[in-house]
Each structure stands twice: as structure tokens, then as C-alpha cells.
């Protein structure tokens, strides 16, 4: 271990300690310490998980009478989270005779493109605003930047109103993914609601259709 040299000399009456090197070899200690430091640094940096905040509208109590909010059909976009990471969507109101669900997925060219096509004006506005802040054209503090963006979203009246629903075999991951897409694309108005029976039937139809034409669904 440490090479402290202590030599006993037992010849003669006089004891003369030999002049030795009293140094301790610190290399193993340094090795161990750097290992421990690396360990603690890495765990400190990576252990913190992130959170995503969502706010759901208050539940309507059974004995309470609340008028459902009226929303324009032309602006609504319905998204249904389907099984096996599929996403179905249709614009406007569900009609069991006419509505056909469009199928897409969570890739960058999937549902994000659909949302972006409808939310382009607002997305450009937010993007331009953020670029201006970075370039220094607009001098604004970090906290007021967030409120400025939410003001931009509030003033927007062209973007879609997205209604998100989940089919019974959807995964929790899909729910987080779709909420994510909302924040990536900067959708101003979106809400999570329960699926109704018409939509459930439409999803079943869409699954059956995909099963009937296996070659078509591969695309």
C-alpha cells in the first residue's frame, strides 16, 4: 500500500532512523476519487426527470346544467388515438354516413404535418417572434416572452380547434405524444374529450378496412 518506509534498526544501542522518503503513493486514491466524482456528476445531471403540464377542464357535476360551448365545425379537427400507434383524424362533425377517417402516425410527416397545414399562420407568427427575440430585435424578458406567446395564441382566430379522443386500446404513450405535438406545432386551442359511439364505430370500420386490404395499409 502506502510506501512509508519505516525501518527498525536494532544494532547497537543507538537508534538512527534512516532518512527515508515519507511520501505516500496517492495514485490509487486519485483513481478512486475520479471514479466517484464521475459517478456522482453523471447521476446528478441525469437523474432529474422532466414534467409536462396539462390542464383539463373542470368536470361537470351531474346535477349541474352547463351549456356545451359552441364551436364552428369548419375549424374543428378531431383526432382519435387508435391502436398500435395509429392516429385517425377527420375535420368537422362526425357523420356515420359521410365521414371517413384518415389514418396517419406520429412521425414528423404524419399528424404533425396535418396540424401544421392548418396552423401555419399562427406557427409562423410564433416562430418569427422567437427569432426576433433571439436576434435582439425585440427586447423582452424570459417570463414576459411566455405570456407574449400565449397572447399571440389567444388572439389567433384562424388555427384549428383540436378535439383529442382516445380509442380504448390506445396507449398512454400516444396521449403524451399528441400533447407533445400540440406544443411543437403551437396549437392555441385543444381539448381532451371522451370518444363517442359514432367515432368508436368509425375507428372499428377503419381497422377492419385496413385488415381487409393488407397491401394497401403497408404504405
Amino acid at each position, binding site marked *: 500500500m502506502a510506501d512509508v518506509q519505516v525501518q527498525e534498526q536494532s544494532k547497537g544501542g543507538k537508534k538512527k532512523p534512516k532518512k527515508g522518503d515519507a511520501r505516500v503513493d496517492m495514485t490509487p486514491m486519485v483513481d478512486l476519487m475520479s471514479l466517484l*466524482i464521475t459517478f456522482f456528476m453523471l447521476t446528478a445531471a441525469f437523474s432529474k426527470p*422532466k414534467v409536462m403540464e396539462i390542464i*383539463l377542464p*373542470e368536470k361537470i357535476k351531474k346535477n349541474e346544467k352547463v351549456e356545451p360551448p359552441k364551436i364552428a365545425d369548419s375549424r374543428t379537427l378531431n383526432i382519435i*388515438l387508435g391502436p398500435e400507434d395509429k392516429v385517425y383524424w377527420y375535420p368537422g362533425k362526425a357523420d356515420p354516413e359521410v365521414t371517413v377517417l384518415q389514418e396517419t402516425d406520429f412521425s414528423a410527416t404524419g399528424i*404533425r404535418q396535418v396540424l401544421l397545414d392548418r396552423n401555419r399562420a399562427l406557427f409562423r407568427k410564433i416562430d418569427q417572434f422567437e427569432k426576433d427575440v433571439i436576434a435582439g430585435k425585440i427586447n423582452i424578458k424570459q417570463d414576459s416572452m411566455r405570456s407574449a406567446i400565449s397572447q399571440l395564441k389567444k388572439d389567433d382566430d384562424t388555427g384549428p380547434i383540436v378535439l383529442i379522443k382516445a380509442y*380504448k386500446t390506445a396507449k398512454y404513450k400516444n396521449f403524451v405524444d399528441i400533447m407533445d405535438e400540440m*406544443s411543437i406545432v403551437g396549437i392555441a386551442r385543444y381539448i381532451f374529450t371522451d370518444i363517442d359511439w359514432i367515432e368508436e364505430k368509425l375507428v372499428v370500420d377503419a381497422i377492419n378496412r385496413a385488415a381487409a386490404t393488407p397491401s394497401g395499409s403497408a404504405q
Partner: protein
Amino acid sequence: MPKIKLGAKSPRIDMTPMVDLFTLLLTFFILTATFRPQESAPVDTPFSVSEKPMMDANVMTVLIAKDNRVFFNVDNGPDTILKFRPKILAEMGKRYNIEFTEDELRLFEKTGTAVGVPIQDMKKYLASKDSDEKIALEKGVPIDSTDNQLALWILFARQINPAADAMIKGDADVEFPVVREVLDILQDKNVNRFNLITNLRSAEVTEEQIAE
């Protein structure tokens, strides 16, 4: 030309300053490290682009494991002196006519693990030393309407610590109806703001996508 003679010196380096620095750094990292208790069930959280870090205190977490078991966890509050955990357990015991002893309450305070047992089995769970036995007892907190213990845990957690924020830590592959049920229970207790615990990933919108 005369040769330059190199002195026969030992090539040792004085490592003392380095060791000093390392010790300091090590002490710093050890002291700042927070040790989280081991999770009862492995939960793979989904990925999201959210960059908001998780809060350290004042949280109550509902864990949803892959096999649809539900766990509930709550912390002691921002200060250890507050002792929220034993208070909540005592309230819970009162409701089910179970008297918890001082020792049991203290043990519950110290172990920060999530509650995954029905309250009827809590005494047995706290008394058991064997980890296999503990795992066998963890059947998940009942959430069905006949005996909705999760709702009571949430109710008491909010009564005792009104500042507690609701967190949901669900496994990515949990089927959504289970999550919906948990959300419903939380909303019944007037919790409308949730934080979903996620891992960070990045996503970008390319220029072509913005172009029409």
C-alpha cells in the same frame, strides 16, 4: 558538443493539489446528490419535448405500472419537520379503523417508497423485513368504485398538504383507459392540473414543413 546530462530525478508528480481539488468536488457532489428510494415497480416513462424540470417537494405522484397496478406516493413536504407522510397515513388508518403505532408511522415517514398495498395490508407490509414478501403484498392501490382507496389517499394528501401538485408517472405502454380512470379520480377531487412525468427528447419542425 557536450552532451546534456539529465539528472537522475524521480519522475514523481506532486499530487497533493489534485487530491485536494478532487476531495472538494467529491464532497460537493456527494452532499448535493439526492438519493431517491427504490421504485416498487419499474416504470418506463414516455418521451416528450417538455423541458420543465420536476419539482423537489410538495408533490403527490400516482404511478401506473405496466401491469396496470396503481401506486401512490407523497412526500414529507418541503421541510422534514412537517412530517406529512405519517399524518396522511394516520388519517387513512382512522378512516379504515386501523390504529398505526408510533413505530409504524415513523417507518412510513422514513421510507419514501410509493404505497402499493391496500390499506388493510399496510400493517403487514410495514412489519415485513423480507423484500420478496413485500413485493408479493404490492397488489396496487384499489381504484374501483366499491373501495376507491386512491381517491382517499388523494383527498387526505390534499387536506394535509394543500400545496401538493399532482404528478402522473405512467408506463408508456399502459392502456389509456386506466390512465383515464386515474385522471377521473383526480378530477373528482378537484385536481385539474397534472404534471406528466416524461423523459426529454427533441423535435424540430423543418422549413419544408412550414412551406405550403
